[in-house]
């Protein structure tokens, strides 16, 4: 217990990196996913084919392999990238594929009459998608999207294997130095649980708000 208190500052600095990384991943992943999901549904056939390949390839590969491929692979191609940068790229690609599939499913679940009605009102593709279809897809996509966010916070622990000093890294290093790993692991687990439960709570709140006034 004393080891945890003594090194709490280090753990918190690690947590800051973990949160920073997770936030970046979720933002980039959602951006890729939005475009990917809409592309999968409405894109021209070649684009759909490329996106389908991207989504299926990434979803069939472990996150760790994607990280190592980017982290070791890019420098081999003479692209210099830090561990943190590689992690952001790899995780965003990974999250993007998963979110694409979530958004595709959610958008497909909006009744066709809604976009027909928008068409009848004279809305073109982007306004129709942004103002009519997506807001109604929101309550459907929120629960799996929040799940993905939690998965990404947990997944961000993998960056310890490419030496990014996140929460996991801080935990492992302090454990190695003090030779007393158990209390530190338990502390780290508790921190992860608190962060993820907060995200889930926030997600549940968003869900309640977003489903207001949407015909089911």
């Amino acid at each position, binding site marked *: 217990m004393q080891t945890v208190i003594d090194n709490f500052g280090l753990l918190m600095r690690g947590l800051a990196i973990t949160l920073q990384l997770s936030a970046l991943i979720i933002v980039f992943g959602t951006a890729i996913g939005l475009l990917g999901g809409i592309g999968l549904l409405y894109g021209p056939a070649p684009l759909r084919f490329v996106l389908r390949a991207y989504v*299926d390839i990434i979803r069939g590969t472990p996150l760790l*392999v994607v990280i190592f491929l980017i982290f070791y692979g890019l420098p*081999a191609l003479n692209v210099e990238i830090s561990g943190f940068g590689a992690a952001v790229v790899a995780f965003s690609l990974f999250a993007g594929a998963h979110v694409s599939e979530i958004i595709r499913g959610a958008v497909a679940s909006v009744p066709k009459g809604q976009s027909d009605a928008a068409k009848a009102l004279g809305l073109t593709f982007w306004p129709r998608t942004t103002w009519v279809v997506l807001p109604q897809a929101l309550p459907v996509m929120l629960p799996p999207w929040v799940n993905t966010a939690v998965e990404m916070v947990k997944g961000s622990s993998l960056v310890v294997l490419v030496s990014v000093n996140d929460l996991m890294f801080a935990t492992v290093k302090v454990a190695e130095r003090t030779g007393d790993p158990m209390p530190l692991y338990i502390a780290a687990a508790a921190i992860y649980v608190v962060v993820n439960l907060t995200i889930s709570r926030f997600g549940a709140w968003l869900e309640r708000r977003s489903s207001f006034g949407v015909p089911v």
Partner: protein
Amino acid sequence: MYDLNWNVILNNWPSFVDGLLLGLKLAVFGLAFGSIIGLVLAFARTSGIRPLSMAATFYVEVIRNVPLLLLLFVLYFGLPIFALRTFPPGTARRLILDGDQSAIVALSVYAGAYLSEVFRAGILAVGRRYLDAGRSLGLNRWGIARYVTLPIMFRTVLPSLSNTFISLFKDTSLAAAIAVPELTFAARELSTNTFRVIEAWTTAGALYITACFLIAGVLRFFERRIRWSV
């Protein structure tokens, strides 16, 4: 410029295949033990006995929100030191797990938490009339669980079970972090020994994708055969 040289991969092909098979083995064990844990938890959560269902919920919430890598480290690095400090050496030695065992236990514990949700949904989806029918046949609580709920639930949750197996198989890649020689470990070793980075990682990725699609295909086939109407 980086020139591709696939000979390195061909020369080390056995280590990739062995790694893939080891990963599958870990995932199979993880799913088997995880299903048992998940079933116990699911019945505990639907039992209506408060302390039991609260304990099960606590387990699920904690495990689902903790990284799998942390679980692996707890079992592989944490447990031995903890055991040696708290128990006499004889007992402690029995608690120490090797890499494969740590991976299997971690995967089972992890899968158990996820599967308990799946099973719980499956149990709740069993129609009232089947339970009533079981009761009118004179079955007790245990009999209803064993002969009515379980078989019906099994058919509803089959697709989720296959999905869990596939994600478990992908999660076996983390075992590389505790030096279990599975596919990711093989790729990492090859890439550090020979610097054939791109070849090693694309091969590993391709093998994972192929394996996942094959497994998915086989499981879907069996699902169709087993899933007769309820």
